[in-house]
């Protein structure tokens, strides 16, 4: 057991750092550093640079065209990207549908879909939740009926993240309405340009547009777009969720967030002294930093065991629970540090990136929208109550 990097790992870290410094566009870096919102093109430029290097799908094994990183390399890569203010990699292609396709898809599907994901030339989005199916995902009702070489899809999906930027959507659809809920579901890939698809924005509490409702009205999808066997889509669905949960612990981002919070606490005043000298507030930051460390080492332990065993098990639900709570606590403490200067709402500056002057320091107007928005983390990817249900059943056997 050794925490120190081997000379090879150190060399790799230097290589990653040099690559990020040379290839992350300066304007994208600035946006991430200052907490500004990114557009489709911002993400694409960075992801395509990573794609060319072969690192975009850094979690993929070699045989599927990934770099086959060791757990240590994965840890190094994620941490350096966060330290250098690289945007988070959009997971829908790279961490969700990609692994489903190389695990359950046929050779034609692998040939058609994997390269564009590796190179980030296609933007994927997710069609899982429905207006009537949230935590009870298996109750979904969007149906796909076979008609010759096609499925005819009707229904609607919701909480669809960034679908307004997407080229393709992967969907859970009901192909056997008579079977038990989990047994009549299939996993379908749908081109967003297919006639009959409508994307309708959902505006969030912070005033932003990141999620949508997607409506399917007699959408014709080739049968060739079915991944795995018909009515066995739930297997793909669960596999994908376990992968998703590992990613959303967001440890490197939270580590960066704690340092940013300290900077704000140094800049803010409290009775004529920097806020960071206020003992009770400093201890709140310290407590959060300890929570992040515990999460980091839990993730390292999971990664280390995965190095021998392959896929993450149900224990990753614990990472999702703590990771999401920590992200929320971070935004809560940031808003607490900013105080009443969190109140000014500047939508132009926040959403359109206009040159409107901030009220107070630049970071102030971001604090409350971030806090409001981040309430989503304990809800998405399977709410934390659902995660506790999974651990209770799969790990504890209750």
């Amino acid at each position, binding site marked *: *057991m*050794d*925490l*120190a*990097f*081997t000379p090879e*790992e150190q060399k790799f870290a230097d290589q990653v750092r040099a690559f990020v410094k040379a290839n992350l566009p300066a304007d994208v870096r600035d946006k991430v550093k200052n907490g500004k919102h990114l557009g489709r093109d911002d993400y694409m430029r960075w992801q395509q640079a990573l794609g060319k290097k072969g690192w975009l799908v850094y979690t993929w094994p070699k045989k599927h065209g990934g770099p086959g990183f060791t757990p*240590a390399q994965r*840890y190094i890569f994620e941490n350096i990207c966060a330290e250098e203010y690289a945007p988070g990699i959009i997971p829908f292609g790279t961490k969700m549908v990609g692994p489903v396709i190389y695990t359950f898809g046929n050779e034609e599907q692998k040939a058609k879909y994997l390269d564009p994901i590796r190179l980030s030339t296609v933007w994927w989005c997710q069609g899982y939740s429905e207006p009537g199916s949230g935590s009870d995902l298996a109750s979904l009702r969007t149906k796909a009926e076979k008609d010759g070489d096609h499925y005819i899809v009707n229904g609607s999906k919701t909480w669809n993240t960034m679908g307004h930027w997407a080229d393709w959507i992967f969907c859970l659809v009901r192909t056997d309405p008579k079977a038990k809920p989990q047994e009549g579901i299939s996993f379908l890939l749908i081109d967003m340009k297919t006639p009959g698809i409508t994307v309708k924005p959902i505006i969030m509490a912070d005033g932003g547009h990141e999620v949508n409702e997607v409506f399917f009205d007699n959408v014709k999808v080739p049968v060739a777009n079915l991944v795995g066997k018909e009515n066995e889509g739930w297997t793909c669905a669960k596999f994908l969720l376990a992968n998703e949960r590992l990613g959303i612990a967001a440890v490197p981002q939270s580590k960066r967030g704690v340092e940013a919070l*300290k900077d704000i606490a140094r800049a803010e005043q409290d009775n004529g002294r920097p806020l*960071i*000298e206020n*003992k009770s507030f*400093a*201890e709140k*930051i*310290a*407590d959060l*930093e*300890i*929570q992040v*460390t*515990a*999460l*980091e*080492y*839990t993730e*390292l*332990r999971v990664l*280390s065991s995965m*190095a*021998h065993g392959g896929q993450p098990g149900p*224990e990753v639900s*614990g990472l999702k*629970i*703590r990771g999401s709570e920590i992200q929320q606590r971070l935004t809560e403490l940031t808003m607490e540090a900013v105080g009443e200067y969190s109140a000014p709402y500047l939508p132009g500056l926040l959403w359109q990136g206009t040159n409107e002057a901030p009220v107070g320091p630049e970071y102030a107007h971001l604090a409350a929208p971030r806090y409001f928005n981040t309430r989503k983390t304990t809800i998405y990817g399977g709410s934390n*109550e659902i995660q*506790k*249900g999974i*651990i*209770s059943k799969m*790990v*504890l*056997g*209750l």
Partner: protein
Amino acid sequence: MDLSLSDEQKQLQEQAERFVRDKYAFDARRKIAATERGWLPENWAQFAELGWLGMSFSEEDGGYGGGPIETMIVMEQFGKGLVLEPFLPTVVLGGGMIARSGSKAQKEALLAPMIEGKKQFALAWLERQSRYNLADVSLKATKEGAGWSLSGHKGVVYNAASADHIIVLARTAGSAREPKGLTLFIVDGKAKGLSRRDYPTQDALRASELTFDKVSVGADAVLGKVDEGFAVVEDGVDRAIVALCAEATGCMDAINAATLEYIKTRKQFGVPIGKFQVLQHRMVDCFTNAQEARSMTLMASLKIDDKDPVVRAKAASGAKVQIGKSGKFCGQSAVQMHGGMGVTDELSVSHYFKRLTMIDLMFGNQQHHLTRYSNLAMAA
């Protein structure tokens, strides 16, 4: 970077598991706790034979070249069995401090026999007013010829009654609570002028109040340098904290396992109470808390040999905060989910709960270490 155990470490883990399974069934522990010493010399002899007393010391010091990970592995199993033998005061604290700061003569006279199982130690640092401030020492050592004379009081000294030597933190210079001017002395457990009041602790260990009335020691009794004992004791205590965290992790695993078993079998309203979602979620929180405790213990065990003293101190304090928080959550939840049975002496649950509670108080509780961590982490 590699977080997996080596083959030797896995063997050590199995060995320690086997010892606890064979020697520390709950009823057997009760009998050991009721003996005069409160621990068994035959178990101690077995520790020596298995090499556990020397495993964390360098080969130069007569040990077997291991380190904090080996200590972590064994302490975790000790936590599972609520083992009573004085490994922490003798090996981790006493042996560790002598190995790092002792003279060649001290190592030969004390460390080598300790590794053979022939000597035991205790650390006397706490006084009535000290709370968690290691520098709040008023027991005085004054020059007496070539040696020193010690007078004053020390409290809650674990293993003092069994210790062949007691390492005493004394003031040789400076004012109250000043880190500078503290000196460590190695005092014979039967020294003239040293009197003890022995008692059991809440968690079935043994401790003593010590009174020093002009206890004479030679110049060679000084451990490390005169007036510079603070750094030695602070470092020693930080290392003991990390070992204690491993013990707490084992306690949490055991108390969670007992509770899980109980809620699967105990029936109310016609079903096992583990079918109720409110208990399921609480049980999951216990599980998550124990995971975090294990992660922080691993982190601290990996960092406690770091060159930078700030890294070491943050690692120990960060882990102790987590252990305090997780231990309290698992302990209180276990008692609650066991219902009335949880507050009886009959089940093991209350015994684990008591040990976890005392571990939080030992060497500074959760709040103390949060403040210490905060002061170190915000300074950067």
